[in-house]
């Protein structure tokens, strides 16, 4: 198996810097998710690891070996693409076998490896079909199968689930996680979906405009965001941000998660109730503060749902307040180890 090391990896297209130096040591068998909004450079970072994009400066090492100038095929990686990138004229079997065929693996071994991958992915009945005769989920599995048969040191996933419908996405998410656990292959997974990132990752890299804002275990990142961006991006509904001045807390902004705010009849900080979304197990109440900022409160289904237009007071415990300075950096962050 393999480790993966990025050492201040940078990428610029012409004069535009898109990645401003990302460093991480990935342990053998670890599942790392790179998450961020579109255009933050997460796919570019993955493609640099794959060798599909040149590295402007810094080092990419796989199992300790510098691979900056190594062709993708010689990096011992396999990649799953967002649109699956299956060869449309080849059967499922040929799609999975193509890489092995090029590597001149003996035919019986190819057949055996494809068969066992097909079995693992429940693709056995479809081996002779063409990709266009498969459903989206099956195509996704073929793309995974193509990666598995090569027995790579590192799996690279580029938003593999974003073309699937919501239900299938949840199912495939679980399958990918289980598969990665079973195979124990070091994986790098790019997504813009923070739920996917939270559920899949051993550790995640939250990217913002070419910078890795925070690297850490999902729950640590959630409980202890390093920047305002991370606090706003991770968690759904997102963290509420309030001008610190409004609650007499100095300069900058404070962030409080929706589940940490209670509504009450009267108090020092008030807001007007907008609409409410009753989701069954919980209710999301959207409010508007006096300065116009939106605040979302998540409350249990048992609590009364306030009517639209009434004014409610908001309260929270000091321990749940996250303070950010004007640059969006976290202040007085609790001391928690980055690694689990």
């Amino acid at each position: 198996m393999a480790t993966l090391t990025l050492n201040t990896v940078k990428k610029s297209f012409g004069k535009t810097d898109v990645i401003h130096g990302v460093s991480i040591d990935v342990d053998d068998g670890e599942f790392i998710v790179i998450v961020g909004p579109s255009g933050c450079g997460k796919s570019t970072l993955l493609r640099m690891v794959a060798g599909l994009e040149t590295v402007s400066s810094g080092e990419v090492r796989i199992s300790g070996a510098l691979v900056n100038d190594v062709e993708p095929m010689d990096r011992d990686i396999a990649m799953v693409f967002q649109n699956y990138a299956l060869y449309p004229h080849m059967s499922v079997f040929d799609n999975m076998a193509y890489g092995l065929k090029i590597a001149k693996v003996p035919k019986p071994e190819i057949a055996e490896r494809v068969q066992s991958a097909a079995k693992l992915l429940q693709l056995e009945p479809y081996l002779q079909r063409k990709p266009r005769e498969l459903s989206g989920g099956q195509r996704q599995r073929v793309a995974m199968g193509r990666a598995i048969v090569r027995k790579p040191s590192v799996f690279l996933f580029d938003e593999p689930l974003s073309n699937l419908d919501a239900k299938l996405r949840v199912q495939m998410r679980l399958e990918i996680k289980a598969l990665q656990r079973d195979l124990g292959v070091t994986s790098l997974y790019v997504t813009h979906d923070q739920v996917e990132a939270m559920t899949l990752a051993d550790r995640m890299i939250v990217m913002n405009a070419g910078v890795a804002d925070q690297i850490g275990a999902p729950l640590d990142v959630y409980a202890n965001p390093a920047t305002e961006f991370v606090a706003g991006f991770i968690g759904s509904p997102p963290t509420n941000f309030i001008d610190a001045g409004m609650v007499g807390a100095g300069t900058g902004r404070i962030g409080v998660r929706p589940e940490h705010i209670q509504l009450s009849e009267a108090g020092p900080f008030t807001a007007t109730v907008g609409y409410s979304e009753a989701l069954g197990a919980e209710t999301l109440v959207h409010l508007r503060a006096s300065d116009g900022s939106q605040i979302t409160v998540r409350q249990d289904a048992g609590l009364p749902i306030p009517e639209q237009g009434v004014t409610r007071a908001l309260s929270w415990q000091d321990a749940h307040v996250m303070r950010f300075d004007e640059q969006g950096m976290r202040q007085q962050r609790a001391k928690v180890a980055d690694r689990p």
Partner: protein
Amino acid sequence: MAGRTGMVEQRGRGLWLTHLGLIVGVAFIFFPIWLAFVASTVEQQDIVRPPMPLLPGDKLLENYSRALVAGVNAPVATMLVNSLIMALGIAIGKIVISLLSAFAIVYFRFPGRKVFFWLIFLTLMLPVEVRIVPTFEVIANFGMLNSYSGLILPLIASATATFLFRQFFLTVPDELAEAARVDGARPMRFFFDILLPMSRTNIAALFVILFIYGWNQYLWPLLITTDPEMNTIVMGIKQMFPSGDDFAHWPTIMATSILAMIPPVIVVIGMQKLFIRGLVESEK
């Protein structure tokens, strides 16, 4: 009564009128071909003496075998073979060259890539007729008059086909090339294993069009073939017309015309399915 199976529901007189209109149209287009066929099955006197017969005569085998074996200047069989070699050479050559140049233009970043593309595109504006004098000069200096290479080579570069394949390659998702790269396919391997099979229907459609283009070449073969043994059939028909007071044997000429139509028709019908798929659908 009118069936309900069509896309548009038609009833009664309307249906009959449309059919009548179409039948008249078809008959109108088909009539000259029918006349040519009739003329190829009768004797010379039947044609020159009005009214011309409208039903086939009994000289079919005789006329056709005379045309094939003897012809007027050269046996039609020879001309058919010449035309076939020329049309196949042009169609296949054009496809091979334009596939490769489109591949280079789309998938490789080399200095002057845009310039080369526009140079190729520019040649679209220069048909054979415009550059025929310098082309003839070149071919004559190479000693290629009265040869297959002389017939084929000047017509083999195709901006249209290059442009067509370029457009098709641009629609192939980049991820496919990247997946092949990760799988370890070098560029030419990607070309042969992935790109070529995906272009199958486009190639078929282009083959039909280019085969007919090559088959119907008239001016170029007329210029560079002086030896009747190298005549192609389309120009050969014209050569059969007598000059001056000579006497034209119309049944033979008509039989040759009908024979000249057969290969393109076979190609069109044989490749119809692929051809239509290539025009309407892009398989991705």
